């Protein structure tokens, strides 16, 4: 998916761009490097925390509505758990990168955490609004409540929450307007400055998982879920591309700009969404 992003970016810039399989090669190469030095226990655990956050979301996310197998481990309060897992990976990363001891990773982490905190605010407000609207914390039940035609989707029944969440999704994906934390040409690459070879491979694998799973989460919450695999792929693809297109059009925000941006319109929309369903 990130290859598609880069490819579109390249085409917009008039280039041919990378081959679509490049990210897989990169990950294979990262795992196949011979040296890997460590800076301590937390340095190992950072990527592991992060990937367990990603896999954790994956495990508890119902993929296909009303399917026995692809509901995974979803249960009554899984929405809360997923919100927690999103932040968990970031914290693990912070600890690991701190152990690396490089000043750039410390700066990157402080930027990343401050941005992610402000991203979480409108997203959490939107999720609370939905929880009040459907009177449940289970993703399966939220999906069930949206069945029966396109006008039953949260997109139409609760537009304010949807817009607030979609705007914060831009930040959660970390594409262009909000990619300052991990952009290679900012203070060198931010948190993963010291991460290399298989550590970086784990992080990159996790980034791919997270992108997919967040798109699926938003599809479940706002766009009526998916009844079959084809629907799942098409819907999550479009949600992902919302972030891609915005990223190509808009230049990068500085950290204080993005923090202020999230605390203005998305926050306001989130509050309105809650007030409506109080």
């Amino acid at each position, binding site marked *: 998916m990130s290859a598609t992003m*880069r490819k579109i970016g*390249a085409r917009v*810039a*008039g*280039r*041919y*761009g*990378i*081959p679509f399989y*490049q990210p897989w*090669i*990169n990950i*294979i*190469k990262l795992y*196949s*490097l*011979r*040296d*890997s*030095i460590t800076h301590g226990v937390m340095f190992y655990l950072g990527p592991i925390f992060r990937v367990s956050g990603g896999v954790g979301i994956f495990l508890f996310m119902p993929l296909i509505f009303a399917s026995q197998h692809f509901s995974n481990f979803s249960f009554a309060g899984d929405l809360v758990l997923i919100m927690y897992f999103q932040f968990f990976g970031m914290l693990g990363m912070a600890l690991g990168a701190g152990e690396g001891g490089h000043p*750039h990773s410390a700066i990157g982490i402080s930027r990343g955490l401050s941005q992610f905190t402000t991203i979480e605010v409108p997203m959490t407000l939107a999720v609370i609004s939905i929880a009040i609207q459907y009177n449940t914390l289970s993703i399966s039940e939220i999906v069930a409540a949206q069945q029966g035609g396109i006008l039953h989707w949260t997109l139409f029944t609760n537009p304010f929450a949807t817009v607030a969440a979609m705007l914060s999704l831009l930040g959660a994906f970390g594409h262009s307007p909000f990619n300052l934390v991990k952009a*290679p*040409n900012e203070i*060198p*690459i931010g948190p*993963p*400055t*010291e*991460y*290399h*070879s298989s550590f*970086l491979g784990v992080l990159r694998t996790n980034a791919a998982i997270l992108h997919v799973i967040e798109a699926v989460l938003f599809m479940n919450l706002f766009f009526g879920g998916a009844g079959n695999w084809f629907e799942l792929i098409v819907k999550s693809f479009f949600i992902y591309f919302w972030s891609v297109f915005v990223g190509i059009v808009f230049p990068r925000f500085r950290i204080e700009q993005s923090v202020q941006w999230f605390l203005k319109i998305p926050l306001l929309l989130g509050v309105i969404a809650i007030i409506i369903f109080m």
Partner: protein
Amino acid sequence: MTNENKNHEKFLHEENKIREVKAPDGSIIKVDPLNDYFLDDRPEIKKPKTNKIVEKFLNWSRAESLWVLGFGTGCGSIEIPPLMTPRFDAFRFGVAMRPTPRQSNVFIISGYLAVKTLKRVIRSYEQMQGPKYVLALGSCTINGGMYWDSYNTINRLDHFIPVDVYVAGCMPRPEALLAGFMKLKERIKAGRGEGANEYAEKFDWYKANQKKIINDWNMPDYNW
């Protein structure tokens, strides 16, 4: 280490000198910062995988994903940014720039190397994770080029770090650099990109050469 340069003592920084420090409990400890504060393991030779098919597959992935350290050493570094523009577009060959030595595999020595820069180059090279490759750009790295009789630029790069591919010219154009990348890919796929092991093997010789030139040696012997 053999062939120790006598000037190293003279140019040692104050904070790196051997000194006596008073511990919190009152006892006096002798501290040698260069040996005590840094790890002093030598680089190890890491053998390729014995299974030929696996190693071939891994070499293919290494060759198709070349991450270049963004470190321009001389005038040739101005030839690297055009590689990423629509005209040359090195991304389609799997070439990408990385900002930190930890994540990169290819080191482009772009042009002449002053002694002061050589010191930084050695530090960065040693921090890169193997297998790592060096692409030397311009005639300055081959025999000194137009700076062959200068008081401050080195003549032969291969005396200080192992070089995989030379790109001749003064300066080579981005097309030549792309051709160099293609040559490097061939070399890696043929399993000859073993610069890191070569460095570990002839470590003493490389270190002696480096120390002969760099008088102001205020770093540990092996930076990793």
